[in-house]
């Protein structure tokens, strides 16, 4: 598999995602600069965590207008797999590739903590290697991770089985304990927890590999 990690000015988990894919999963991965109009020959795109363009207006609000995001939207429309992590999830909702929005945590403070997350759907390229109901211990690190959407959207997400990850003990006030969701076609996923941070036993766990290996094994049968 060849993955592309989009780098916005202010991305700061770009290298972590790159390292997890290249060193922990031993797959090919390249960086895609934010003003690239084309993604090149990649099988999957990762939008990393960080503070794209400083996130001073609204998280992800400026990133939405970058040339790279236009290319990502096109890639997604064509069925390409896109994983947005943390700030990447925020960017995906700003772009409309995923419904809803991520707002200030209910506690009003940035929270960095390892939390329990339940896998509530395994029929996706990002979770098919997990067991339904499996509990993953994944770190979160965000100030604006409270997922909100109108009632109709939430009902639809649930009815269409697009809520993939739910907090066991909600750390940020997200509606319906949402930690990660899919788009309609199930090729785009956004999640607030950081799977790339627990892809290595030295970092206190390997639960993040379930997500990343699911993505890779959609392309590489041997994994």
């Amino acid at each position, binding site marked *: 598999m060849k993955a592309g990690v989009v780098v916005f000015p202010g991305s700061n988990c770009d290298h972590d995602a790159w390292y997890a894919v290249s060193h922990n999963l031993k797959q090919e991965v390249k960086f895609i600069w934010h003003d690239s109009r084309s993604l090149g020959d990649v099988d999957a795109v990762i939008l990393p965590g960080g503070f794209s363009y400083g996130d001073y207006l609204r998280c992800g609000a400026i990133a939405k207008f970058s040339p790279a995001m236009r290319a990502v939207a096109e890639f997604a429309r064509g069925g390409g797999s896109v994983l947005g992590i943390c700030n990447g999830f925020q960017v995906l909702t700003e772009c409309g590739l995923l419904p809803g929005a991520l707002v200030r945590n209910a506690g009003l403070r940035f929270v*960095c903590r390892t939390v329990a997350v339940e896998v509530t759907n395994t029929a996706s390229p990002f979770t098919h290697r997990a067991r339904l109901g499996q509990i993953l211990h994944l770190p979160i690190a965000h100030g604006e991770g409270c997922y909100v959407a109108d009632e109709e959207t939430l009902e639809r997400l649930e009815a269409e089985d697009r809520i993939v990850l739910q907090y066991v003990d909600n750390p940020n006030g997200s509606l319906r304990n949402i930690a990660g969701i899919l788009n309609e076609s199930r090729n785009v996923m956004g999640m607030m927890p950081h799977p*790339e941070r627990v892809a290595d036993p030295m970092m206190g766990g390997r639960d993040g590999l379930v997500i990343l290996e699911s993505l890779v094994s959609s392309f590489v049968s041997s994994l």
Partner: protein
Amino acid sequence: MNSQITPEVIAAHQLTPEEYQKILLLMGRTPTLTELGIFGVMWSEHCSYKSTRIHLKKLPAEGPHVLQGPGENAGIVDIGDGYAIAFKIESHNHPSFIEPFQGAATGVGGILRDIFTMGARPIAVMDSIRFGKLDAAATGARNRRILEGVVSGIAHYGNCFGVPTVGGECVFEESYDGNPLVNVFALGVFRHDQVFYGKASGVGNPVIYVGSKTGRDGIHGASMASAEFNEESKQKRPNVQVGDPFVEKLLLEACLEAMQTGAIVGIQDMGAAGLTSSTCEMGSRAGTGIEIDMQFVPQRETGMTPYEIMLSESQERMLLVAEQGREEEVFQAFAKWGLDAVTIGEVTADGMLRVKDNGAVVAEIPNRALADEAPRYNRPHTKPLRTAPLDGPEIRSADLGADLKRLLASGDLCSKRWIWEQYDYQVRTNTVTGPGAEAAVVRIKETGTSIAMSLDGNGRYCALDPRQGAKLIVAECCRNLSTVGALPIATTNNLNFGNPERPEIMAQIVESIEGLAEACRFFEVPITGGNVSLYNETLGSPIFPTPVVGVVGTRKTALPVGIPFQRPGLTVILLGGLGSPESREFGGTQYAKVIGDFLWGVPPRLDMEYEKRVQSTIRELVLENVVESAHDLSDGGLAVALAECCFGPAEVGAGIRLTSTMAPELLLFHEGPSRILVSTATPDLVFASAKKNSIEAIAIGATLNESLTIRNQNAILIHYPVRELKSTWSGALEHHLLHDPVLV
């Protein structure tokens, strides 16, 4: 123009009449106002270390690992495999009191620039923060808001920049009421061949300004009150600068990319004294001159005078010298990241700092006069200020268990999770051991080596005896590193004191420095740099003398051994023994503070030879995986350390049986150093290692499920379910803070 220089103007620049005479001598003429401003800031205590320089020379600065000692933007030590680390600590005490959020945020920004201006990528930050007591009747609400502001300021800057905040300390003491301490430590990594220095070499090379535009913020933080300025003073911006961590992140990436081109000759950040210090220091180090013209300096406000531009402390700016003819390569790197980069002048041969405004010279001073000829004072020092009595009250506890709970709930000892969960301590996926541990451990992906770091201070010990206190702090940091298996290799320090013009305060400074020197020499952890913060006084009452020490060490990257007991059925061993404290040595303890609300006596004794052997023992035991947990005894003594060992996710407790004739209060809560608690399945191996190193090791009990029981000679001193102690400890800080209606 020269008529502007009145005695009032001189005083307003915090220059003494004698210092002004020295300026006249160095200049051979009356300085212009701009020149006076430049002297004022370069000769300030903050930039010149004029009160401490002669004493700082006593600190050991050399050792086998040291590649760069004091005098540069940060110290550099070798970590093997062709890699090195740059690290340093800096204070932002005064700004953090005036504006806690921005004060702390720009403190983080400043020290990060010190690290990456040398070419190192920052990989860890730690903070040592001190406040007045949160429950003080008159000032508690203010102290709570300062804490809240400082923590969110650190979080705001570090999280956005993308550096993990991996550890630190937080202390509450009446003496920091109205004078909080915010000391920020940062550490970066690079290869030996990637090191850059702040030198303006090569006559004719362009001097290039990069980063944020210059504004009027932070001009001359010290003072500004001459007649000429009163008219303008209505428009003066607050003296605290505003930080932009996003721009800093861009500046980091752009600088590291520009450095890779090979076109950069020297580079330095614009920190305190902004454009002034970066120009004259870079020139002075290279023995060159620098000529710049204000008209080329990017400005975000109109009508700025050369005085304002030279003294602005706008954040996120750098000055660099490039190889002549290769400017384009540098400009391209900065353009990619959307940052300003413009040539504002060039390196000259005459050793002068020449400032022009549209071609007209407005300041012309020898660089050396500014950077190296600053006054040095051997200020009078008598006996260190001391208000505490030698003897204290008789210690008799009504309920030892209740005392333990009160200690665990106290500000200094309770869990600081509420603080460090606001910091991203994992970004860059290198944090092997993060906040709340004995020492932070961050791996270097490229080499298989990990860096351990510990930051510590103890104002109470130093108030009792600054020399002994300083030695104990160094010993504690080295012990913390050893407890995670790391060999301590180098030190940075932040000296926080009151007014050095008071001989009894100057004595605290001198004694502390000499104590640091002795201990750092003994433990072979040379001091490669640091910071001095003086005049920490409010209404004539000084802070406790507070040297803060950061020690770094190395170990092979491996799964960590942590503080908590891992499982029941293991033997609990106390390395170093129970100690034999005198009652005077109990007066600086947390027990005396929290239960007795009193400070007296002397700090604990320290046998440095013995301490070193304890450290060698624990390093061996950890690296060979003989122990499953390790925790050193410090604040709160044996009982607090034992309780902390029970606070892991598994909540494993312990049954402890002691046989001592010591008074139970001393036995449980004295803070004698050189002691470490371990749990092990192979006690014989622990005893063998202790014997080999000639240190005491006592089996004091075993780990078990759910409760902590401490007996002495068959009397039960402490008996609690672990869960009860843990909930007291973990919820205390939030409980203290929630008393503030403003924060609810």
